[in-house]
């Protein structure tokens, strides 16, 4: 297939992540801003005059400039997305999404290019984004095109499909795990929507167990500070090859597994000492929150991941990740299933775990853990981490913008195609 000169110049990608918005025209990597907005229209006009501000909502790097000088800034700062979704009626959230989208186009609108008639834009949303989110995102782009003539055509794809495209895998399972949610999406040229399995858990579970560990170590006051708990989790957490075996070895030789976490900005150091075996709970809970060791934490009040109900089916919130992947694949045709198990791609910050030198016999990375879980079910699978987790969704969106032809118009039934100027708006 030949890629037109126009597409080569004006293909544009957008990844609407919960924490970050990645955007930009075709390049090796995108620009990134935080997915948040500061509502200045509610702030004292005196402050605004000092800064010479006329905008009502600020996004991008400018947000940090104002934060120090505005009292009680949390009232004015809006993070529009939670686990990749936006509430239908949250107009402040939609306003922020409009502003960050417009920010991107203002950054890259080509000046003085006579051939420019607008970008071919592919936006990527969560796999479970409902129809109203698609409608609002289209509306945002239509409005921006009216104002800036920046959008010749726009389409929306699910983020797991974008990951598969970036990984150059036509048949695979993409497992996307963020803070509060994990999606398992089998893909065979298209996402197989009836086979998507969604788990109500993610990095938040690891944060919760890390907080319990801090309380156990006598740092209960710090356990309520989200940022502190996350730093502690990332510094000491490990994924065990086998939890029972790992705990046994760690208790037999605590010095080998000893973890020390220095609190930034202080001279205080948290020494896990003989309780260093608890490091393995942090990694294990992401992959198997059903292990009996967690029951005592649930009974003390740590939230148990909620079940998901899809039609008649109930997916246990604590289902081991390997079992959830097998459940998703089993909903596809029997001929396809072995091909899907050949390529399982793990994407998202929740899978970024290291294996410290010297602990390779006990600790594993996320891909090995999933492979072992599937192997215990009699399934020989290939599991890999997405090669560029930060940018893979955006990259997939760019390829999509390059390739899909003009005559593929948007279809709500198939949820694909171009929403096009001159046709739809």
């Amino acid at each position, binding site marked *: 297939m030949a890629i037109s000169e126009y597409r*080569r110049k004006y293909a544009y990608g957008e990844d609407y992540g919960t924490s970050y918005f990645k955007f930009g025209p075709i390049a090796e990597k995108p620009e990134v801003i935080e997915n948040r907005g500061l509502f200045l229209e509610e702030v004292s006009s005196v402050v605004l005059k000092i800064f010479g501000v006329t905008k009502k909502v600020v996004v991008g790097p400018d947000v940090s400039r104002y934060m120090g000088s505005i009292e009680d800034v949390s009232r004015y700062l809006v993070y529009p997305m939670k686990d990749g979704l936006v509430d239908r009626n949250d107009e402040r959230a939609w306003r922020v999404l409009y502003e960050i989208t417009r920010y991107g186009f203002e950054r890259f609108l080509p000046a003085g290019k006579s051939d420019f008639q607008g970008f071919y834009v592919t936006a990527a949303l969560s796999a479970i984004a409902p129809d109203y989110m698609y409608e609002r995102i289209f509306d945002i782009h239509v409005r921006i095109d009216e104002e800036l003539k920046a959008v010749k055509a726009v389409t929306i794809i699910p983020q797991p499909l974008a990951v598969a495209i970036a990984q150059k895998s036509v048949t695979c399972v993409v497992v996307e795990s963020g803070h509060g949610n994990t999606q398992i999406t089998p893909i065979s040229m298209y996402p197989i929507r009836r086979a998507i399995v969604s788990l109500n858990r993610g990095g938040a579970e690891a944060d919760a167990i890390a907080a319990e560990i801090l309380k156990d170590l006598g740092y209960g006051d710090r356990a309520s500070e989200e940022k502190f708990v996350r730093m502690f989790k990332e510094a000491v957490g490990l994924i065990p090859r086998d939890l029972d075996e790992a705990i046994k070895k760690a208790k037999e030789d605590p010095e080998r597994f000893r973890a020390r976490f220095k609190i930034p900005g202080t001279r205080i150091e948290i020494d896990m000492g003989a309780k260093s075996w608890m490091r393995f709970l942090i990694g294990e809970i992401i992959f198997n929150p059903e292990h009996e060791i967690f029951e005592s934490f649930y009974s003390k009040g740590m939230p148990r991941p909620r079940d998901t109900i899809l039609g008649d089916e109930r997916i246990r919130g604590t289902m081991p990740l390997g079992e959830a992947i097998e459940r998703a694949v089993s909903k596809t045709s029997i001929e396809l299933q072995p091909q899907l198990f050949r390529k399982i791609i793990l994407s998202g910050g929740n899978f970024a775990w290291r294996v410290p030198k010297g602990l390779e016999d006990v600790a594993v990375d996320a891909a090995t853990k999933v492979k072992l879980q599937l192997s215990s079910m009699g399934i020989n699978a290939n599991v890999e981490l997405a090669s560029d987790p930060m940018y893979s969704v955006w990259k997939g969106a760019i390829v999509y913008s390059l390739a899909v032809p003009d005559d593929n118009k948007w279809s709500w039934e198939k949820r694909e195609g171009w929403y096009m100027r001159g046709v739809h708006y």
Partner: protein
Amino acid sequence: MSARSLLLSKIRDYFAEREWKEVSSPEYESLKKFFDLIMQDGNNIVAIKLVFAFSPSALNELRDLVGKCLNVAYGKVDKIYIAVCGAKPVSLLNLKNSFLSGGVGLLIVHEDGRVEERIYPRALREDLKIFVSGKAVEELRSALEQLKVRVQALEAKISGLEELRAGEHEKAMLAVSDLARRVEKLEDKVSRLFQEVERLKRSYYQRVTAREMETPVSLTESSTSEAEGLPSFVQGNPWLSLLSKRTG
């Protein structure tokens, strides 16, 4: 002003910056015979004991002091701090476990008057206060009376049911037993079917997956010339060809 008073005022200032207030309620007068300060942080009552530890023996007494503080204040306050003046921080390292296991916090008052929080205290108690107003008690009594009436009505109904003729009762019991047996058999069949399906799936996966792993899947990759000059993630990407065929 004595050295002790000066140091206590430094500690007060330290907590005042966190918007803690000193408590003067008569309820805590007895605690003040042992502790030097009683402060309040939101809903928490915090007791603070100041000690001077210029000698090694004074340091040893600190270990016992943790236990004494807990004995005096347990159940009466939410948190306890021991503020130490005169000891080098490094000499307190040996006592760290005593503080941690007791859940007592450690403040170090430096020579320059600076207060440093070295160990955070643990919450020592949970208070559950149930306030029951007179009105609420009356409502509870009324609800209880209503329940009694309903229980009596149910008992009457059950007695009525017990008047079923012996024959009919036995017939019903036989039918129920028969149903229970059939359900058990069905459950057993379903369980065996499920196990057989799982066995077949595993066997299929193992046979076919092993074969599939060896068989390369041929993909129509985009040719180098088509993607020349484009970023690396576009080059050799089979999706280019696939997506380009998706016409309307």
